[in-house]
């Protein structure tokens, strides 16, 4: 049922010197990166508890579509967020190859549904570029902690706490504002 994968085995495909996991120095931090569609995102490895294969979720009522549902993680119940839906790409249609990144935010454990794990990068602080000033509310930069260029790819680094805190307040307002479903007559 559970298909947890040890983190150490995940990044092994690439042997690019810069990506060498061992080459961690004080100014660097490691990020787990994953893909959603054609985009690549990264979260700090310290907040990642495990990575597991997709297991069917149980849905939760009356919540936005990016709250995918809840799963049983060895006896505790954790919510799963659909990152694609979170960024407006619609709900992910899951396959067995989809992956859940289990993340620890403070006391809470949560899962993010992504397409695939791509890499583990050691990124120096200097190499992180601030997100561009996106106006018009197109991008809520709150939960973007920076951008990083790996080879020719751009990796969007996410700040887990912010991402979830935004979701919390939105969830609340979403629920509060949720019109009662009209009775189907």
């Amino acid at each position, binding site marked *: 049922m559970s298909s947890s994968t040890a983190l150490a085995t995940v990044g092994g495909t690439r042997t690019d010197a810069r990506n060498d996991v061992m080459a961690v120095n004080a100014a660097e931090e490691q990020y787990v990166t994953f893909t959603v569609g054609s985009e690549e995102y990264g979260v700090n490895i310290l907040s990642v508890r495990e990575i597991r294969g997709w297991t069917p979720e149980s849905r939760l009522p009356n919540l936005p579509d990016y709250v995918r*549902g*809840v799963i049983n993680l060895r006896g505790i*119940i*954790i919510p799963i967020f659909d990152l694609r839906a979170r960024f407006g790409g619609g709900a992910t249609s899951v396959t067995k190859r989809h992956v859940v990144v289990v993340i620890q935010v403070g006391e809470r454990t949560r899962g993010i549904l992504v397409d695939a794990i791509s890499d583990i990068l050691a990124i120096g602080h200097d190499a992180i570029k601030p997100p561009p000033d996106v106006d018009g509310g197109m991008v809520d930069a709150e939960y973007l902690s920076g951008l990083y260029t790996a080879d020719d790819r751009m990796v969007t680094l996410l700040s887990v706490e912010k991402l979830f805190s935004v979701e919390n307040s939105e969830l609340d307002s979403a629920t509060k504002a949720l019109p009662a479903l009209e009775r189907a007559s």
Partner: protein
Amino acid sequence: MEDLSRFKQTYFDESAELLEVAESGLLRLTPGEVDSDEVNAIFRAVHSIKGGGGAFGFTDLVAFAHEFETVMDGVRNNTIPVTTELVDTLIRANDLLGQMLAYAREGDSAPAGTTDGTVAALRRHLSGGAQPAQAPAAAPAAPAPAPVPAAVYADDEDDEAGLFGDAMAAIAAARAEEDPVPPGKLRWTIVFRPRSDLLMSGNEPAFMLRALRRLGDATVECHTDALPTLQNLEAELLHLSWTVTLIADADVDLDKINDVFEFVADDCDIRITAEAPPPAAEAPPPVTDPVPVATAAPPAVVAATPEAPKAEPPKAEAARPRPNGGGAEHAGLTSHTIRVDLDKIDRLVNMVGEMVITQAMIAEHVRELPPGEFQELLEGLEQLAQHTRELRESVMSIRAQPVSSVFSRMPRLVRECAATTGKEVQLVTSGETTEVDKTVVENLVDPLTHMIRNSIDHGLEGPEERERVGKPRAGTVHLSAQHRSGRIVIEITDDGRGINRPKVLSKAIEKGLVPPGATLSDEDIDNLIFLPGFSTVDQVSNLSGRGVGMDVVRRNITSLGGRIGVYSTPGEGSRFVLSLPLTLAVLDGMVISVGEERFVLPLTNIVESLRPKAADLHGLVGKCDVMMARGEYVRLVYLHQLFGIPGAVADPTGALVVLVETEDGSRLGLVVDEVLGQQQVVIKSLEANFRRLDGVAAATILGDGRVALILDVAGLREMSRHMDSRAPRPPVAALPAPALEPV
């Protein structure tokens, strides 16, 4: 360090219990008829708190406890008469002791002067009665030509000094001739004779000797006379005793020396003699026979102490019911109860929970076996299920506690509230022995306190007003608890004026909680008092008018999986009804399915399930569907609509209607696709990693490892009501939606 903090935790736990012991003892303390057992119990409680506090270095607390203890000692010795005023002072002192403990627990020191008033009050009582032997010996400061045995202390204040005093005086006199005590210093002679089993309790005499050396210039002499011959030596027994001559500064007083022996006071004989500056002696003569291990005490070296030591131990025991009495009582207790770390019990509860899940999983697989072939396996599993259920109940009952621990706090609260408001109040309690999970009990204190205050402050009228309307002068508040349909129901009823609906409504409109011109039902208006920030008192009163009242109560109760309702009749009173789950761990549920989803309905809510005929179904004024069931119309609630589940059976005649009942007795028909079967489920928190959801009480894990939500029937009714009253329904947005913020 971690060990120490663990001991601290134990100390605070025990102190909390001791405080309760002391308080209930104090509340029973009546002038004129003093029950010495009761007094002793209080004394012991305070003394134990003091003792432990000393070990952790809570000096403020110890100092205050000491004052308290001194007065209790006076009461115990009948030197302080028990008066109502004294009892009040002592109750206050007990409260204050609790506060000091709280400060100590937080690692804060109490603000300066916290204890001043109470200490003064305690001392007033003290000076009224005889002064117990307490003031340390610092008195003999004036140099006298002859050595003055300043005072003689036994290891306990109760001991009369006399018996031993003569002997010690002789020693001191003998010594004083040789060695002068430097000016400004005191010479103490400490005879420390541990009982032979001191080591068994993990005490190490060397520590105490070292501690004494820290107090001043100590000369330690060890007495080995009692050492048996090698073949008789029992290595685990202590055969030594010591005489310490301590030259210390004047600020070292008896208390400081006694502190050194704090933990062993019950296991040894200690004689402490102080001596003022004048010439004194070196070469401490070996004093007295060592430990009176048993019969054959070796001949005393010093002629001055022939009988005393042997006479001493029994006397000491007789004179102090404190340690031994306490010990005996503890021994009596321990034979029936044990103190177990709550974590251990919780681990057990969790384990049983997992077992229940596993058992359900096996049961699920077994259902797929060809029928009739595995009769014995099925029977075995049936038994396993039975045992699991019993195991679960036993484990849960470990955590269960009677609500009396909460109820017993209320009389005092009522007394205080009555005094503050000038109202006459009578509190009637019933059902104190009703048991419920410890967590629930603990979390009931605040809500109940607040609600009782609220009832007295807002509900009851003053005595004059009550007489005017023809009620007895004294108002009655009734607090009751009972088990009802697998939950505990606590009611707080008062016979006051009831909720003033027009006032509540206008207040709510004024505060913008309800749009002006809204028409609300009486029940809706009553429930407005649970809205955050709502308070009708024009002047903020000391008691409950801080506007943080009922909404907090409601939130506390909801977070325990409970519900609160209010029923009020103007002029006759109000009734608050709390309904809480008995345990927060496991419940019996019915698994149902709607579309692809499965849910669990608590069995306690289910009346029956049926498949309605088209003729039984009716629309009610275009608002909702009702169904005739057993001669009664019940409202139908479509779960798939409430939860927005696709692919469900929409037509009730093709689906099932589960007739459910909430705690307040109202029924509704829940339309679901299928009823899959009954099962024990382990309650898992959604809030731990996510948040509360409307209509959902918690979650659980089914046999196949999937998560299923446990439905909250009253919550569903609430949701459906808001859905049904579609058109103008102004208050809905403001109505107390159960706490939405993640916990």
